[in-house]
């Protein structure tokens, strides 16, 4: 059909010149490759999901601001796990020891080079000085009442009054203040224990009294889990997940240090947090890509040896294949400077696609040789017979990809550019290298006096096997077309069931420690790392958001700078209450050593009653940690049965029996009064609390590095990746503010945009491909027939995905443009050959092209299927979807398309000749 076109003349000229001057041709390619290597040197690999988020979207911009400007957002969290130790106290002791040692160890090299600061214990300095100013006025008044009398009896009476009035049996209030209440309960238990010691005549020291009051007022400084067997050690790295060069070495160094120390103490440890997940994504992606590329390359080259019975086939096809990849990376370096997780995957896809051109050329070449053509003639005929087909195939594929470059999402548009240039680079490398390489091989064989390798001489890339299929097609075109239509129709019924993956975590590698630890942190520490966040521009706005968001039923907790600072109004309102408190304290704090055992006994038993009631409420409310602490303090198990002697029993027994060493107890009372009044006075600063007073670890969590923006983290009640819950959580947060951001919203945006981009660019690609085919074949009917197997392939692919619940995600969605670009190729090759061989020759067409089509499809499928063993689930699903897509496209192209052509041209007598030939 084609006649002497520009491409024919170009291919012929290059063929003649490169066969004759194979050395110069190879040098020319080497020169181009050196330039491209320079470009490749400027490519950085960014293998995280974070790096492919659509950067222009508002909530993605906010997310990036959080990552870049709030150092603690990039915190590496070490989870120290002592659950392998049966004894709870021993586990707690070892976990704390590991945290203490890490605190010291990470001040030194090689760790310190990656760290800004660490936090193994809560910094209580702010509360020690400004504790009262940070309380609401009503709570300052509560404080006033509780500490209006610092004698044992007075203190316990007021604490009892407070328990009975404030909690009022309100389980949710208990839950809200759980950590604070827990430290208070534990502190009180310790105080009673100390009182028992003193009452029984044992000496106690001021240091012991100070420690008890410290625990009572400021709680446990360590970040421990519900049962205290696990602890957190927070590391603020001096890099973020955007610092690709530091990410893996930094996190690996810290991980090694943490694990070594934990092992020394006989406990386990692991890292998590956004930065660690980023490292894991990068490493598993790279590992997956390494496995995939090696598998694909080895299988493809083995297939080449097997198919062409030519030991040099891997070199003849492999050198241009690798050259094409280098050129593609070079283009990427010059144009977009990076490879992301999707474009890096595409490099492996390119192995499967690029080799197709070699297969077409080598098949044509071997067939020519088989038919007795001389070397030069065989190469030139191969170029002229297959060249146009592969050029049109490559152009349609590249056009489909380039359409993606107009997408809104960087991920998709980068894929379009890389993939488009990739196809063109492979095409150019194959056409430029295969003739001179074959010529060099021929030259060597001639020099050695050999005509061909004995095995090569037995080459059987002939038509026999596949021409049988061709004959069957010619005889039964209607039956085949009908059966195929029915199959496509059947699958299409399930096409609408295809779903989109909404959970990025389902796209990560299975069994990643950082992901597992995220779940454990959620269960054991109430932390959910993928919650929504808000960037606020002022302290009053932060406080307002903090109080409104807390009320949402899908919100477990709100974390912000709000509880650590005061506004001017708050300071003004609270100051008089604090001044009153100080005055009252100066009276209450007067040292007194008088203790009335009878009155004290009443309050001790009353306190026990309060503990029991609160324990009942905690048990009913499933607050296991609190129920455990309170039950334990009263000598009961979780079923409420009395199992041991409690501190209430011991102290009550001493007081009741009249054996109290009142003198000693009075001394302890003086020590407690001294300690308590000193600490309470210290807490009573009336200075307003500003951001600059907040400890660095807290400030870095909630205040941007420039001090102008404040972060509000909204901790959800459930895993926010759960689809049903995510909608509730998003809706409720949206009822308060439209400024929320977070990975769940960013991934939603990415999914939506990838889907919209996918549809838009696919439509564009179909139109462009149709036009190219129309221009190439110059026949509207043939162009339309060529599109039929493609449409059928989509329906079957979606149907199979629907039946087997295979979801699309923003990575495997590349199957759509790839299928459009690649799936059309086989039909185009059949068209070319059919037009060349003429009417009534479909059996010969299938015989001549079938093997090549099978091999090219097989290599493409190998390229895609090589992702299936990848640990990264997104890569695995991409491998499955793309392999399926290519297999379906091949079947449709070699069965449905020829059948349609035979029916149309030979039965219905429709013309598919180019317009000018009419």
């Amino acid at each position, binding site marked *: 059909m084609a006649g002497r076109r520009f491409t024919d003349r170009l291919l012929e000229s290059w063929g003649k010149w490169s066969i004759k001057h194979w050395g110069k041709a190879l040098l020319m390619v080497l020169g181009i490759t050196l330039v491209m290597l320079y470009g490749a040197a400027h490519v950085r690999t960014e293998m995280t999901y974070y790096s492919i988020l659509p950067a222009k979207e508002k909530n993605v911009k906010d997310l990036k601001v959080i990552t870049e400007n709030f150092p603690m957002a990039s915190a590496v969290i070490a989870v120290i796990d002592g659950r392998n130790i049966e004894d709870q106290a021993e586990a707690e002791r070892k976990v704390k020891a590991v945290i203490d040692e890490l605190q010291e160890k990470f001040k030194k090299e090689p760790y310190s080079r990656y760290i800004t600061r660490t936090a193994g214990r809560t910094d209580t300095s702010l509360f020690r000085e400004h504790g009262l100013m940070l309380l609401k006025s009503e709570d300052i008044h509560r404080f006033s009442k509780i500490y209006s009398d610092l004698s044992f009896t007075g203190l316990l009476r007021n604490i009892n009054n407070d328990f009975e009035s404030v909690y009022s049996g*309100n389980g*949710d209030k208990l839950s809200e203040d759980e950590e604070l209440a827990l430290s208070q309960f534990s502190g009180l238990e310790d105080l009673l224990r100390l009182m028992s010691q003193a009452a029984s005549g044992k000496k106690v020291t001021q240091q012991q009294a100070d420690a008890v009051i410290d625990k009572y007022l400021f709680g446990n400084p360590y970040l421990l889990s519900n049962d205290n067997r696990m602890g957190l050690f927070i590391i603020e790295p001096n890099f973020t997940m955007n610092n690709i060069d530091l990410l893996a070495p930094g996190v690996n160094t810290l991980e090694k240090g943490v694990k070594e120390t934990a092992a020394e103490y006989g406990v386990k440890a692991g890292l998590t947090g956004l930065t660690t997940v980023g490292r894991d994504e990068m490493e598993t992606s790279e590992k997956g890509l390494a496995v995939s590329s090696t598998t694909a390359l080895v299988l493809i080259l083995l297939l080449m040896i097997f198919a062409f019975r030519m030991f040099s086939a891997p070199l003849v096809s492999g050198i241009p294949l690798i050259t094409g990849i280098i050129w593609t990376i070079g283009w990427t370096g010059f144009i977009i400077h990076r490879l992301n997780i999707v474009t890096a995957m595409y490099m492996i896809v390119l192995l499967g696609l690029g080799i197709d051109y070699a297969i077409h050329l080598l098949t044509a070449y071997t067939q020519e040789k088989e038919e007795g053509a001389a070397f030069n003639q065989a190469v030139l005929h191969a170029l002229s017979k297959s060249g146009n087909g592969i050029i049109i195939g490559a152009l349609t594929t590249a056009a489909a990809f380039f359409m993606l470059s107009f997408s809104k999402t960087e991920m998709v548009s980068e894929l379009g550019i890389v993939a488009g240039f990739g196809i063109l680079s492979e095409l150019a490398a194959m056409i430029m290298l295969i003739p001179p390489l074959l010529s060099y091989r021929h030259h060597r064989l001639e020099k050695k006096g050999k005509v061909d390798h004995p095995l090569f001489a037995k080459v059987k890339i002939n038509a026999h096997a596949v021409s049988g299929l061709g004959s069957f097609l010619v005889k039964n075109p209607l039956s085949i077309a009908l059966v195929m239509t029915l199959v496509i129709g059947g699958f299409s019924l399930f096409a609408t069931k295809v779903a989109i993956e909404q959970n990025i975590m389902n796209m990560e590698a299975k069994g990643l420690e950082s992901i597992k630890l995220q779940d454990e942190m959620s269960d054991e520490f109430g932390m959910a790392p993928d919650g929504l966040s808000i960037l606020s521009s002022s302290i009053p706005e932060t406080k307002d958001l903090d109080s409104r968001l807390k009320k949402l*039923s899908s919100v477990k907790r709100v974390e912000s700078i709000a509880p650590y600072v005061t506004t001017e109004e708050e300071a003004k309102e609270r100051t008089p209450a604090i001044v009153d408190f100080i005055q009252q304290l100066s009276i209450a704090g007067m040292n007194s050593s008088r203790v009335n055992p009878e009155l004290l006994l009443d309050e001790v038993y009353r306190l026990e009653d309060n503990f*029991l009631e609160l324990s009942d409420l905690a048990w*009913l409310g499933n607050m296991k940690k609190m129920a455990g602490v309170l039950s334990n303090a009263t000598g009961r198990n*979780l*079923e409420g049965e009395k199992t041991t002697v409690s501190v209430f029993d011991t102290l009550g027994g001493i007081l009741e029996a009249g054996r109290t060493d009142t003198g000693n107890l009075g001394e302890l009372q003086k020590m407690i009064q001294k300690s308590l009044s000193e600490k309470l006075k210290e807490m009573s600063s009336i200075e307003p609390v500003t951001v600059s007073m907040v400890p660095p670890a807290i400030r870095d969590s909630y205040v941007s590095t420039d001090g102008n923006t404040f972060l509000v983290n909204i901790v959800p009640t459930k895993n926010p990746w759960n689809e049903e819950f995510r909608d509730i959580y998003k809706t409720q947060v949206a009822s308060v503010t439209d400024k929320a951001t977070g990975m769940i919203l960013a991934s939603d945006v990415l999914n939506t945009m990838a889907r919209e981009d996918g549809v838009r660019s696919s439509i564009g690609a179909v139109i462009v491909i149709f036009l190219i085919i129309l221009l190439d074949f110059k026949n509207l009917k043939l162009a339309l027939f060529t599109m039929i197997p493609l449409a059928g392939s989509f329906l079957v692919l979606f149907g199979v995905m629907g039946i087997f619940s295979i979801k699309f995600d923003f990575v495997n969605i590349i199957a759509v443009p790839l299928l459009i670009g690649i799936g059309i190729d086989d039909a185009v090759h059949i068209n070319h050959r059919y037009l060349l061989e003429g009417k009534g020759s479909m059996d010969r067409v299938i015989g001549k092209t079938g093997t090549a089509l099978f091999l090219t499809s097989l290599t493409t499928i190998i390229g895609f299927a090589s992702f299936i063993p990848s640990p990264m689930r997104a890569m695995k699903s991409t491998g499955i979807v793309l392999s399926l897509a290519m297999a379906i496209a091949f079947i449709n192209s070699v069965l449905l398309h020829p059948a349609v052509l035979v029916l149309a041209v030979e039965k219905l007598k429709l013309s598919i000749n180019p317009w000018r030939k009419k």
Partner: protein
Amino acid sequence: MKKIFLLLSLLAAAGLSCLSALTPAEIVDKADKAFKVGRVYSISSLTVYRGNEAQPVQVMEGYTMEKNGKSYSLTIYKEPQRMKGTAMLMIENDLWVRFASTGRVRKLSSSAKKNSAGGSDFSYADMGESGQGLAEKYTPVLKGEEKIEGTACYKLELDAKDSDAPYGKLLVYIAKDDYRYLQVDYYEDNANTKTMKLSDYRMVHGINYPFKAVMVSHVKDSRTEIVTTVFEPDSSKIKDRYFTTGYLKSIR
């Protein structure tokens, strides 16, 4: 159990009874009428599931009555052992608890009524809101018809009249054939945060009563099942003196 009775009395539309047939208000009223019973004695078990793990079953004896426009309820825990003898008295908006572990009676703040009852997915308000009924707090709008587990239902949206209502909105599904409540979706801050399904309706003394209620939380991994084993409307077991703090103190 009586709590289901009270829970459903939440849906009572006291002010809607004079309207013409099959208006949204009347549909709600018809559905509520089945639950407007004077004095009810019940025994029921409440099981909370966290994830798929069942927590200890709470068996409760319930006494309820309506008198002089006020609703009264007394619930006494029979199981588990830890809670046995703990009792809860509700008179309109007031709530008292008697703890078996200490024998003391404590009055709860009225705000506690919005909180989880017994660690379940029902709030105290769900369990036994004041006898005002929904008509006082919600405006019903017919939203069409829908099938719930194969039964054709009226779908009604009940919008909160003011901030005093515990929920911003309710979607209720009432069977068209016999005006049974089959499902209630609770909305807070524009989102459906929990769903209650009522089933196992049985006719007792002319009252078609659901012996099973399941509340599924959509914001926590939990659900709560209440199964009624004894339901006695107009029961002679109900005495006025039960609904006093004095009686509460005497419970053993």
